[in-house]
């Protein structure tokens, strides 16, 4: 089979494949191929068992949520209050974290797998309707999922009495209107309801109790659900045999930036290290032009940065968190030694400032302020006072120590994830994360860009 042109550098090797097994086929997104490669067998198996049995299977497999927070899906399903109907499944296909494009491939290349996953989740958690929210910009994914859904309806996999059983569920497609913050689950629910995509206030912390239309709602990531068909066919034991006890199975990682072969890779959870990923022959095969690695973002644009010192950390939340960052959405962005660090930080911060929904003050005002100071510095018009000002503004967004990686060169010890925040959701802190990492780890590069100026004290003591 020829490899599909839209997945540059996708190499499977002989690693176990849970969600990407059909990516090798040109026609992977059609029902015919899906059925020929074991499609809808997981659903068939699930329907032969009781919902609680299926739920237990997922719980036993500890399928971690792949949206960013890494919350176990089985546990999440159990959070819905008893006896409140209807309850909904909302699929978060609004993948928009900078550097992340794994869900897009899953939707474009294997939409039936996602649909089957949705059906299994609805069956196991007793959800009466599924809303599939796909990011507005993903035109191909929208088309492929819609086509697949039509096929599935026609073939009796979705709708009334699925596969001849008494289980019925409808899947509703919804296209986003293009806002990053809608990837936040409560903002996604607001958007789905037809309101402005602004996060809801917490508590309640989970929409499981009060979600879409005020009803119990499970919000799952695309990749999380795509794991379910394989899991049901092969069982929790086979699933947990891959990876580690706390991070079983595989996960998809999207690598971008200064590597020889950027792309999406399905790696073994918990054991694969960043070094394996960036330098391994199966994966990225090293830094472009054999340059020096300067820094990398381990988990999407909002994650604090790592330096080569953290290369040997595995994809394991319990190790990445204490080291000062997060695995997040599984996007690794690589910067080699030619990278202009202040400009890189500006690029990311500008994105978050632009995507702020404007609801709460620290994010709305602070994000833009950070962006403007940074662009001044990048333009060579900054002063040394601006550097501390960046940290001061950040302090107003996220008070207290912001996580960062350790560095023997700088004598820094890691401040572990997570952080405290003054904002409603994580967009505000995300705007600060790249600034903080860049300034902490590469302050000299900033200092070289700014003019030293004696500041005349306006008030307070002269020190």
């Amino acid at each position, binding site marked *: 089979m020829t490899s599909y042109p839209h997945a540059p550098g996708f190499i499977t090797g002989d690693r176990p494949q849970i969600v990407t097994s059909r990516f090798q086929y040109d026609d992977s997104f059609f029902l015919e191929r899906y059925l020929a490669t074991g499609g809808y067998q997981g659903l068939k198996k699930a329907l032969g068992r009781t919902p609680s049995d299926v739920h237990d299977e997922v719980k036993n497999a500890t399928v971690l949520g792949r949206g960013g927070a890494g919350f176990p899906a089985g546990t999440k399903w159990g959070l819905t209050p008893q006896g409140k109907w209807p309850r909904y499944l909302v699929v978060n296909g609004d993948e928009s974290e900078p550097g992340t494009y794994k869900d897009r491939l899953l939707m474009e290349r294997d939409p039936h797998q996602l649909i089957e996953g949705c059906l299994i989740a609805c069956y196991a958690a007793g959800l009466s309707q599924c809303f599939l929210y796909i990011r507005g910009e993903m035109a191909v994914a929208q088309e492929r999922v819609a086509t697949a859904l039509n096929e599935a309806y026609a073939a009796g996999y979705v709708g009334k009495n699925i596969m001849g059983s008494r289980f019925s569920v409808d899947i509703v497609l919804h296209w986003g209107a293009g806002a990053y913050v809608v990837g936040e689950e409560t903002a996604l629910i607001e958007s789905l309801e037809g309101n402005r995509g602004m996060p809801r206030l917490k508590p309640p912390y989970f929409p499981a109790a009060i979600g879409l239309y005020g009803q119990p709602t499970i919000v799952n990531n695309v990749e999380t659900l795509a794991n379910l068909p394989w899991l049901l066919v092969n069982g929790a034991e086979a699933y947990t045999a891959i990876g580690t006890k706390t991070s079983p199975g595989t996960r998809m990682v999207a690598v971008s930036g200064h590597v020889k072969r950027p792309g999406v890779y399905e790696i073994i959870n918990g054991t694969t290290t960043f070094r394996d990923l960036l330098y391994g022959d199966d994966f990225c095969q090293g830094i472009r032009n054999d340059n020096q690695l300067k820094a990398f973002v381990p988990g999407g644009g909002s994650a604090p940065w790592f330096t080569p010192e953290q290369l040997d950390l595995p994809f394991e939340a319990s190790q990445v968190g204490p080291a000062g960052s997060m695995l997040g959405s599984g996007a690794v962005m690589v910067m080699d030694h030619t990278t202009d660090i202040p400009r890189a930080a500006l690029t990311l911060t500008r994105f978050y400032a632009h995507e*702020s929904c*404007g609801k709460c*003050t620290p994010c709305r005002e602070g994000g833009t*302020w950070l962006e403007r100071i940074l662009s001044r510095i990048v333009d060579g018009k900054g002063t040394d006072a601006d550097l501390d000002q960046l940290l001061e503004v950040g302090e107003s967004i996220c008070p207290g120590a912001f996580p960062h990686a350790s560095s023997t060169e700088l004598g820094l010890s890691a401040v572990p994830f997570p952080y405290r925040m*003054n904002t409603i959701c994580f967009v505000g802190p995300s705007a600060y994360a790249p600034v903080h990492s860049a300034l902490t780890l590469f302050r000299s590069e900033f200092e070289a860009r700014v003019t030293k100026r004696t500041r005349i004290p306006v008030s307070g003591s002269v020190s």
Partner: protein
Amino acid sequence: MTSTETNVTSDENQPPVDPNAVTMSINGRSVVARKGELIIAAADRSGDYIPRFCYHPRMSPVGMCRQCLVEVEGPRGPMMVVSCMTPVADGQVVRTDTPQVKRAHEGILELLLANHPLDCPVCDKGGECPLQDQAFSHGPGESRFVEEKRHYEKPIPISDIVLLDRERCILCDRCTRFADEVAGDALIHFTSRGNNTQVLTFPDEPFSSYFSGNTVQICPVGALTAKPYRFKARPWDLEKVESTCTTCSVGCRITVESSRDELLRYQGVDSDPVNWSWLCDKGRFNFEAVASDARLEQPLIKRDGKFVETDWSSALRATAELVSSALRDGGAGSVAILGGARSTNEDAYAWSRLARALGTSNVDAQLGDGLPSTVYAYPQATIDEAANASTVIVLGPDLKEELPVLHLRLRDASEKKRSKIVEFGSKESGLTRYAWKHTGHEPGQQVAAVRSTLTETAVVSQLGKGSVVVVVGRGNLAESPEFTMSALAAVMELVPNAKVLPVLRRGNVRGALSAGLGSGSAVDILERAAAGKINCLVLVGADPLADFPDADLARRALTGVPNIVSLDTFMTTSSSQAQIVLPAAAFGEKDGTTTNLEGRVSQLSRKVTTRGTSRPDWMVAVELADLLDVDLGVGSVHDVFEQMVSTQSAFRPIDRAALKSSPDGVLLAHVGSAPIASPVPDVPERAGFSYRLVVSRKLYDAGQNVANSPSLALLAPGAAIYLHPLDLDRLGAPAGSNVKAIGARTSVVMRVEADATVHRGTAWVPFNQPGGKVGELIDASALVNDVRLENL
């Protein structure tokens, strides 16, 4: 007494433990709070002020400004939470004074100020600005923001009254939340996002809400300003007293604010039983009328058909002469007094004392546009009881148009699922969309409508769920008030435990009737006048030519009376028919008390000196009495009050001390027993091609207060006849064209408009609109009035 005994006694005296009380600690001090209360509210009571912008106690919290961050002790150490979103909990430890909290407060304030223009010296809010005040008390003192600030066109009008300066806006969501949540007019909203987020109206759809002025009051910065007050004064130049608005009979508590002896602003005061700090725009902005150039300043006397200015002593002597000659020629029955419902209790009482002393019972505070005063004999409900009743039955007027703040209270009751509203009306009202059930009926059919709706199974079970309050008023000026009274009697027969909240609209109508100004009926008086049986008619702030529904009768009456004396603030059409016109003191120019629709008596305060030589109504009554050799035994407004509360049984619970200690007011005593059910008159059949007339009021009309307030005058929608779109199709006249409306006596030409809230077969006409002549189509003696329409 031994110590054990003391303990026992104190235990017995202790109130039972409140199951809803929680004990928490704020800054190390123990505070008792109610379950479900927010930390910020508990801290307010304990005296620990937490800075805030978006939080408003009368609206749901949104936690947007993030200014009210506090530290709460949690399992993983102190956590920073927003105190406007976090409810209190037993044993909760809250700190508002740690260095971390202080740093957060300074940080957020610096961020809020980053894009806020520092144009405080020219900003209306400067001096009373929460942002300014809290920047001083909780801010960093210095801004490090050196970037260019956000720029927008400023200011832009978002309605005919309110202007918006988006540069000053700190996006706290107060105005937009108010518009959506409290007023139900979600016409302003956030648009765009991130740093470009702004409050805006929808394109071509202005923020034309009856409550838009409230957004100006609750704006924590100077982003929203209102035309009537804009640039008129600085807050530190304003002197204020608390008073009660008498524009309608809801009786909202307000502060009356003036500078250099000119009224400049009314602001809502949060009176829990009444207005919850909200005001309608008409009440808020009609202070302009007090300062209007059109105010009467000198007594006027008609010589050779023309008014000439005179002095008070000549005017009063001439008045006394007119009255005594009337008494001489026609006896006490030939003197009549109309009006008194727009001023204070004291004014009304003084005039009623004078009337009694003269021996006339031709006295009515209403102008045939209300209900008989027997409506007060039913068990009475308060506004709070209505807004907390499980069922509210509305019989009558469109509350949004006539008593806007009562509409807000009932809307809130329905939206918060406390009450279900069952509405009866000849036209859909502003409350209909919040009603659980709306039963439309043709004029005169309300008894049948009540009997059929209230016996439906679902309604019966709803009525059995808890308290029931009947809100009753005059919904249609073109039908006999007897229909509403019969419908009320029918409701009381079907729901005997119901209480009644009469909603007659004129400011102090309840006080005037309770003070004795209701012994006659306006229809009677005017009919007697038309028949030449009244020799002297005193109009106390009454304008029958504009306000009496039957224009023809009013006109015949005023021509039939040889001598009319008018006491008013403006030269009205009726005043111009008078022989003597006396200038009256207006609201804000006199002390006294007023009574709202639920019978709540509260104090009015004088803020500015009276206009010209004008005098309060009571004083005119007393001086006139003197000249007629009647001693009313009073020399000051205090005397009138004391005599009123000691002689009028309804006013018995009221005394100075009670009024002083409860600024929200004291309720009148309930007087009278349930009236005898009125028989239902038969309604005549409607002819096939005619429409049954429904005439009711809009908030803005041609009334003197609106007409003389430049900001409000243009808001009156104007005279037109409204038909259901299908009826308009049948008529074949395009909307906006003129049609000929043919009544029983005469015909008038009016603009016709389509309105889907008008029921089929009826024609709705707003009353007393500029240029309106609907009064010509109303016969006060008819049970209902029909109109035929002809295409021109």
